[in-house]
């Protein structure tokens, strides 16, 4: 009896030590369900606008004439232009690149690293002897906006194979680690005080943080990817901001997007 109990305890400890992304995700979802009981998990795809009716009204009016519409149109033409070697983006992606964003980022077993959609776009250009695009530039924003647009309504289906556990864990650590002059972790604002008012801004839930990219931000006056937001968050808390598509940001995006598994993609979107 005692031995059995001991073995059970041991198993309990052992299973805690082994990374279990799906258990993390279930706990993540449960956390927000309990913290914000009036809000359906699916509704968080609209970020802070899921949490405040008045702000949501204003936002819906903006979305009547979406500021990212031009980006999607231009992205479509850019996407269809052939490279100098006669090939095009469609040759680099599954299903010709249409409706595939729900599988990004993924862990590339051959390269041994996380590949985001933006990185895959530049890898495609590399492979076809085209110059890389600036990750903060308009062209990258437009192409990824078009690809996101064709993925609307699909649900995130991120996989973490055995080989990817370390990258996932690194992303998870980044999310919970305090940094910068203000000593904030991602989780400080988006878990500990989620739904709270920072001045007049409502702190959004991280469940839903991955669904709507790229996003036209009025603050940027431009469409940009999730990692641009990471950079801005780091700057806001007085922490070192990292390069776009750096390993740390890619791993963070991997973790965060896995936490959004099962949620509907609704990008591109607009945010203040």
């Amino acid at each position, binding site marked *: 009896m005692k031995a059995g109990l001991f073995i059970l305890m041991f198993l309990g400890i052992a299973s805690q030590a082994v990374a279990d992304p799906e258990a993390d995700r279930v706990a993540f979802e449960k956390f927000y369900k309990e913290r914000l009981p009036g809000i359906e998990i699916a509704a968080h795809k609209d970020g802070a606008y899921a949490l405040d009716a008045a702000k949501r009204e204003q936002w819906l009016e903006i979305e009547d004439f979406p500021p990212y519409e031009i980006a999607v149109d231009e992205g479509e033409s850019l996407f269809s232009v052939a490279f100098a070697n006669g090939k095009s983006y469609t040759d680099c992606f599954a299903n010709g690149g249409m409706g595939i964003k729900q599988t990004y980022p993924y862990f590339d077993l051959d390269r041994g690293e996380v590949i985001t959609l933006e990185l895959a776009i530049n890898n495609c250009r590399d492979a076809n002897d085209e110059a890389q695009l600036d990750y903060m530039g308009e062209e990258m924003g437009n192409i990824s906006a078009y690809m996101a647009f064709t993925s609307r309504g699909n649900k995130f289906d991120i996989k973490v194979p055995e080989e990817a556990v370390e990258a996932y864990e690194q992303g998870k650590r980044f999310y919970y680690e305090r940094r910068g*002059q203000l000593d904030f972790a991602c989780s*400080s604002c988006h878990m*500990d005080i989620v739904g*709270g*008012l*920072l*001045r*007049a801004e409502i702190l959004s839930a991280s469940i839903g943080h991955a669904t709507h990219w790229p996003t036209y931000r009025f603050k940027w006056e431009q469409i940009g990817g999730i990692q641009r937001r990471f950079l801005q968050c780091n700057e806001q808390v007085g922490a070192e901001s990292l390069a776009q598509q750096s390993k740390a940001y890619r791993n963070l995006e991997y973790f965060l997007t896995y936490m959004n598994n099962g949620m509907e993609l609704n990008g591109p979107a607009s945010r203040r």
Partner: protein
Amino acid sequence: MRSVAQFQILLLILLVPGISTAVSPEQRIEMGKAIAFNRNAGNCLSCHVIADGELPGMIGPPLVQMKLRFPDRSALRSQIWEAAKRNPDTVMPPYGRHSILTEQEVDLVVDFIHSL
């Protein structure tokens, strides 16, 4: 804008040697208030309701009856210097330990907050 200019003038008064001794407790409270309200300094309003402050956040408790809550001024100072000392899970930035404010500025803010 006006409050920033005011704040700079007050800070000048404090920093010029010889004049600092002439700063009254009321002036210190005013100076502390300017630092507390400044978005690029204390920015206390981003999380706390404070009398006279516009567009306050509501993350931390409203800053009222501070002498009742902190009879000991040094406990309040420690809270502003490094709130994690009392509560490791706090989201309040460590204003002193991370040099978000100078030691002098922390003391002025403590004077102001303690007066509420």
